């Protein structure tokens, strides 16, 4: 193991602190840029209606026992009949979301804006850090770590002899990139702090097929056995009254 490296205080003053400050400032700047570019999303009638429909069908499924059998059957027919039931999706009409996305330029535009506000500043800062600060140790963490952490903390330094508790400047950049979320939530308010990790997750999870939800709900309703809960409740009420009268 090599002896303790002595880090120049100039590194602290000119690399460590400026890097963090720049990352924070960029985060704030990006928040305001995103706020400027955000277009209020117009609600689509069909999507709203489908969401509400699913809610209503779900409550019918959950509370089916509380209405008389006749009412339940009427409602089930209303939702699931094959001709014009609300939950029935005719075959072929189930368009896939991919096609829908291409047909709607607004949607693609929104995505692009989101991506632009994420990718551009990130590439720029990464290039900047790489160009000016690559290849040296910028800080030391005050506790020892196992060698597994080498790739995380010493990105850009290919020396196996340096102790793992030293942090390279490029790694410091990454630590800041992913670790400043708490700070942003302090500065910008709780819900505004969107860090990049979250955004990346959002990218993956979009494009759910709404018609699929409808047909699942329809199947769920179809297999329900209606059992009226009221006669049982009546007996329970009788017991309550008996107790009350006593």
């Amino acid at each position, binding site marked *: 193991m090599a002896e303790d490296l002595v880090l120049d205080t100039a590194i602290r003053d000119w690399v460590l602190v400026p890097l963090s400050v720049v990352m924070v400032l960029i985060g704030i700047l990006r928040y305001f840029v995103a706020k400027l570019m955000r277009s209020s999303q117009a609600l689509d009638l069909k999507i*709203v209606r489908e969401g509400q429909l699913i809610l209503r069908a779900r409550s019918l499924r*959950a509370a089916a026992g*509380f209405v008389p059998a006749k*009412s339940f059957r009427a409602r089930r027919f209303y939702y699931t009949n094959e001709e014009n039931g609300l939950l029935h999706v005719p075959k072929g009409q189930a368009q896939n979301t991919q096609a829908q996305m291409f047909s709607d330029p607004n949607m693609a535009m929104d995505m692009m804006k989101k991506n632009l506000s994420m990718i551009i500043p990130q590439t720029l800062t990464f290039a900047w850090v790489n160009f000016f600060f690559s290849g040296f140790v910028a800080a030391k963490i005050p506790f020892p770590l196992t060698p597994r952490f080498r790739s995380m903390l010493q990105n850009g330094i290919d020396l196996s002899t340096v102790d793992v508790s030293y942090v390279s400047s490029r790694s410091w950049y990454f630590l800041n990139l992913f670790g400043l979320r708490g700070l942003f939530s302090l500065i910008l308010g709780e819900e505004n702090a969107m860090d990049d990790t979250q955004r990346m997750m959002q990218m993956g999870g979009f494009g759910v097929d709404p018609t699929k939800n409808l047909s699942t709900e329809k199947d769920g309703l179809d297999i329900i056995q209606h059992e009226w809960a009221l006669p049982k409740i009546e007996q329970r009420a009788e017991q309550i*009254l008996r107790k009350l009268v006593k």
Partner: protein
Amino acid sequence: MVGAAEEARLNRLESQVDNGGGGAWEYLCLVQKLGARRSEKVLKHGLSILNDPRARSRLGVEEWTLYEQVAIAALDCQQIDVAKECIAALSMKFPGSIRVGKLEGMLLEAKEAWADAEKAYARLLEDSPLDQVILKRKVAMAKAQGNPAAAVEYLNKYLEIFMADHDAWRELAEIYVNLQMYKQAAYCYEELILCQPIVPLYHLAYADVLYTMGGLENIQTAKKYYASTVNLTGGKNTRALYGLCLCGVVIGQLTKGRNKDEKAESPDMSSLAAKALLKDYKERSPEKLSLVTTMMKNMKLIS
């Protein structure tokens, strides 16, 4: 609907503010949060904040929501001049805002300039056709004009889209009851029961509607729903108890002369309800006990 605990808190704060104990802003916030309708108090205390430049500037951006709240309260109290001032201040600050547009529409409504209000709302709906508040305003307007048929029409259109909005279902149910369209009202109450199956008020209202419709089957169902109200309230609901008594009597009359084995269980429930009622009256309102006792005797529920 406001829960009992929150209402108590609201009343406490209100008396504190009324007696000059401060906390007006907290009171206004609570009213806003609970959606309570205490327009006179809101108007009084809200104006006292708005007329005091120091207190007003201390609110920061919240100042504008206070303007909105006071404007609505003023409209409710027919203080049209005050409302006009508030709305003017808001539209200076937020020109072209839909939210202020709604207030302007409501101002026209308060002046009973129905045609103008209608036009204003139609213009707003062009921009955002799915605005729930505006769509509900239109219903309210139809109701205020004494035109329940139009209100029903608007509400049905609204519910075609926002079909999970249970407040709208309740409103529709109440209008249908007023119009004596009980079948439709029963449908709405069923929808409400499905939506919130453990709210006793919906069970009770559904039972009332079924009882009013009449017919043996409906009344038997109504009795079950009165029983479930009793179950949900622990027998504390007087109306449900009366309902059980009446259902028992009517079922007894309707099934008279038919086979006896069906009848065997039904009088039991209603006489139990009658006893529970008498006990309740004895505790809470002894001076009316004799009245109720004779009535129950006439109905042959107690001996």
